[in-house]
């Protein structure tokens, strides 16, 4: 399609906790502007993989590149030097992350949540950060709630604030870890709508989700993971309509298609 380098590239990624190998060599690629949905049974290592992408977890083997930059390492004269904290932090600024349980800062108002990153980390001046934050809140439909504290919002509203907070850093890649699975069913739609809007605006996204409808409608690529390996990957039409692998078939039957 396009010959730009991929936004995310994972090569043979391994990760263990103690003796327990969680990721057993993950290979995948996400092109710039593409939406990839990651599905798979509980415990298959989806969250772990997502956390490796922004170096919340250190991988044991393999390489992850985001926007062609190696995550967690600096390449110099044929060697890879492990990065210092400051360098890791700089890389994370380009990667937004949205969590299952929102993880908004409860001691700050909605607006403060949004400007915390830009002002403290990017050292952006306060006025312009506030101005951008307000635009983002408008975009997720929550302009009127900027002075509220997270606890005063519904789950769906909190998750939309969390998405806006990540966007405030102007990331190149957005990671979503089951963004709707902690929500009451009637609140799922409003969050998915924001994500769909974001996908249409050209954001590169990796979404761990059990929302098959969303994956079918929005994803360019669906990856099915099980027991730390990628079992099957491809266009949503292919994965959902005629999966090749028996494990994929079994999983899709279980989640009710």
């Amino acid at each position, binding site marked *: 399609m396009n010959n730009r380098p991929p936004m995310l590239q994972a090569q043979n990624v391994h990760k263990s906790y103690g003796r327990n190998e969680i990721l057993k060599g993950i290979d995948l690629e996400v092109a710039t502007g593409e939406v990839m949905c990651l599905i798979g049974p509980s415990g298959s290592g989806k969250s772990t993989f997502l956390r490796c992408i922004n170096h*919340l977890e250190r991988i044991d083997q393999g390489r992850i590149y985001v926007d062609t930059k190696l995550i967690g390492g600096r390449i110099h004269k044929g060697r890879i030097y492990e990065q210092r904290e400051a360098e890791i932090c700089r890389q*994370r600024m380009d990667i937004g992350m949205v969590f299952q349980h929102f993880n908004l800062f*409860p001691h700050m108002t909605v607006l403060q949540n949004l400007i915390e990153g830009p002002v403290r980390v990017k050292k952006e001046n306060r006025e312009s950060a506030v101005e951008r934050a307000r635009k983002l809140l408008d975009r997720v439909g929550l302009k009127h709630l900027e002075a509220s504290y997270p*606890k005063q919002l519904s789950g769906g509203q909190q998750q939309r604030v969390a998405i806006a907070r990540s966007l405030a850093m102007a990331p190149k890649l957005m990671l979503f870890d089951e963004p709707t699975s902690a929500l009451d069913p009637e609140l799922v739609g409003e969050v998915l709508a924001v994500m769909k809007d974001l996908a249409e605006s050209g954001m590169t996204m990796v979404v761990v989700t059990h929302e098959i409808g969303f994956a079918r409608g929005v994803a360019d690529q669906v990856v099915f993971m099980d027991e730390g390996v990628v079992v099957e990957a491809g266009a949503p039409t292919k994965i959902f309509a005629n999966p090749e692998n028996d494990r994929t078939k079994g999983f899709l039957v279980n989640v009710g298609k």
Partner: protein
Amino acid sequence: MNTENYEIVPLRHYGRWVSGAVVIFLLVLIVRAFVQGQIDWPVIGEFFMAPVLIKGLGNTIIITLLAMIMGIALGVIFAVMRLSDNPVTRWFAGFYIWIFRGTPIYLQLLIWFNLALVFPTVNLGFWEGRMVDIMTPFFAALLGLGINEGAYMTEIVRGGILSVDQGQLDAASSLGMTRLQAMKRIVLPQAMRVIIPPMGNEFIGLLKTSSMASAIAYTELLHRAQMIYFVNAKVMELLIVATGWYLIVVTILSSLQTVIENRFAKGQTRNSAPSLLRNVVRIMSARRGMAGGAR
């Protein structure tokens, strides 16, 4: 059955009346005993505001305040050390707590005060001095109380940090914050809600413990009271004066504690109820006929 017009008979609490009467009777006995006892009440009035004692009270407050600040600073530093990935710093923090919580504060004060016996001189490279000149009663009391307090604060701060959800650190990191930034901006402010109540108790405890410093001749409230009764022999009277002052300061601190607790509770309730202080301000300004009141 239509019960709409029935009279409702409230429950009578006879037991409360009886126990209330007993307590009041006992109080009357105690007060009578003190009034009839050999206490020279005018002396109490005379010394309550005596400049010598007020200065002692000032010293008590100063040493408590400084030792508390030192304790909080040490508490935060050692709590972070205790929670770090580095086994050496973790061990060192554990050792600090073990030493200073495991020995009586009275003993620690004596050791600091008598440090000159083992280290007659202090050599900082660029500066040299005699230990007896440095280790004044004030400085010994500050080190003794502050470092001891730090050991207790470490455990309190550590508990506070651990009470903050790991997801908060993940969120802060994913925004590109360093560990230190995340600690300062995200974790500690939330830990405060858990830290403040026991910290208030520590502060009040420290205020009282500071009276131990009279043992190393630091001229705090109790020490001053003792100096006076050694001269005029009004022992009980001066002890009552000291009691009164301690109670006054503790009462003020307790109400301050409530105000601060409310402040750090912000964002923790769904329908942010106005704090006690704000309520008081609102009622007071309404009384004065101010329009609007506090909002």
